[in-house]
């Protein structure tokens, strides 16, 4: 049987790994390669690495860093950050990543998803939706550039469009819950999933393995991603790369 995926999500900022709270206050948590080595040992289901500087600095992906990470990864690896062209996506897959994650460039030009998919296969195209609750009247807005620019896309319309194109995965990242470790925004997931038959990975808010267990028991097959949970330990948020072992994972599925 297919299992849900439990996925550490690592953020790269100034060449180091950081963890943010609500997309702010990046705290240094270590070296990317070192983290990958530890996650290899822990046999993680998959790994997402997002370069949170690239789009804001208006530059392309750091291919050297991606190569170093991909060479080391013994698990599937999804890279996101600064990808704006088919050629960049092709190179990243050639370097050994399984998937490329798009945000701003896809939202700005939705055809890019199809163009990239035609070359690397649609299953390897991931779109990340950084979403934030509206201040009034409920509902959600999508943001880009690390939560600083509001997109004109409404979540429902975007998901419908992506469904039509048929990409590999949608990552729903809750800006409100990022780094809070207070649990996932399951209402948000429910809302998006009702119109979506593509794989979904949820990011933002996981604070305990129970949060992951609850997400999986509610949605059956889903990607449960987390940053803080897998890089911090204890209430003082001491940096410690961690991940449940095979035995500890069994009751979560």
């Amino acid at each position: 049987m297919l299992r849900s995926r439990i996925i550490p999500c690592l953020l790269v900022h100034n060449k180091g790994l950081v963890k943010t709270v609500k997309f702010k206050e990046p705290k240094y948590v270590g070296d990317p390669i070192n983290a990958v080595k530890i996650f290899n040992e822990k046999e993680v289901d998959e790994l997402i690495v997002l370069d949170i500087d690239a789009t804001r600095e208006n530059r392309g992906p750091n291919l050297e860093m991606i190569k170093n990470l991909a060479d080391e990864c013994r698990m599937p690896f999804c890279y996101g950050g600064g990808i704006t062209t088919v050629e960049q996506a092709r190179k990243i897959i050639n370097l050994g990543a399984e998937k490329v994650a798009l945000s701003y460039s896809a939202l700005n030009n939705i055809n890019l998803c199809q163009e990239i998919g035609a070359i690397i296969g649609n299953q390897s195209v991931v779109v990340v939706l950084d979403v934030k609750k509206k201040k009034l009247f409920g509902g959600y807005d999508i943001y880009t550039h690390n939560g600083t620019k509001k997109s004109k896309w409404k979540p429902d319309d975007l998901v419908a469009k992506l469904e039509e194109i048929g990409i590999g995965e949608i990552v729903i990242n809750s800006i409100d819950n990022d780094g809070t470790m207070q649990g996932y925004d399951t209402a948000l997931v429910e809302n998006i999933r009702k119109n979506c038959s593509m794989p979904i990975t949820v990011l933002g808010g996981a604070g305990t393995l129970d949060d992951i267990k609850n997400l999986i028991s509610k949605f059956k097959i889903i990607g449960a991603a987390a940053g803080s949970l897998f890089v911090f330990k204890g209430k003082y948020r001491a940096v410690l790369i961690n991940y449940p072992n095979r035995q500890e994972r069994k009751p979560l599925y």
Partner: protein
Amino acid sequence: MIGIIDYGSGNVQAIATIYKNLNINYQVITKPEDLVKADKLILPGVGAFDATMQQLIDSGLKDKLNELVLGKKVPVLGICVGLQVMGYKSEEGNLPGLGWIAGKVSRFDENKIKFKPKLPHMGWNTINDVQNHKLFEGIDRDFGFYFVHSFYFECEKEHNILTTSNYGGEFTSSIYANHIFGTQFHPEKSHGNGVQLFKNFAELELC
């Protein structure tokens, strides 16, 4: 020596790293004329069917591979699309495949997948033995392997099926015909199970 074919399809380095750590002799091969140096070949694959076939044709690898694999019976292991191109054709594209193993590549029928998400079939799935083969010796079937695909190989002959997995029904997750092997999953991204499979492939004695 294990020849890992690099025709721009990705994951070459991940496989090379595994063989390096296993202390097994390997070489990344980019030129068709270098294929003869290898005792066994690995044909990786990430991407769309036609794009992959086109790369094999343009690089001159297709003809040389046919000569070695069909003519000289050099053992080969195809991965993901590297498996799929071993069939006659695919619903994903228009180009003919290599036709090494009788079968075609079809898209999963979404109507049979009774839950969400539907496609792609992505994540860690278990495998079930159809044949007992040394390629899968020492592998934890329940831990399984990592898959990401929307198309699968339909063998015409059951004796070509090595393992199946379940996604809205049983489908073929690895195939073989004497010295030709293919896995729909990605052993290079499947931790210890994958390492074991690459080790087994290197150690296989085939006649």
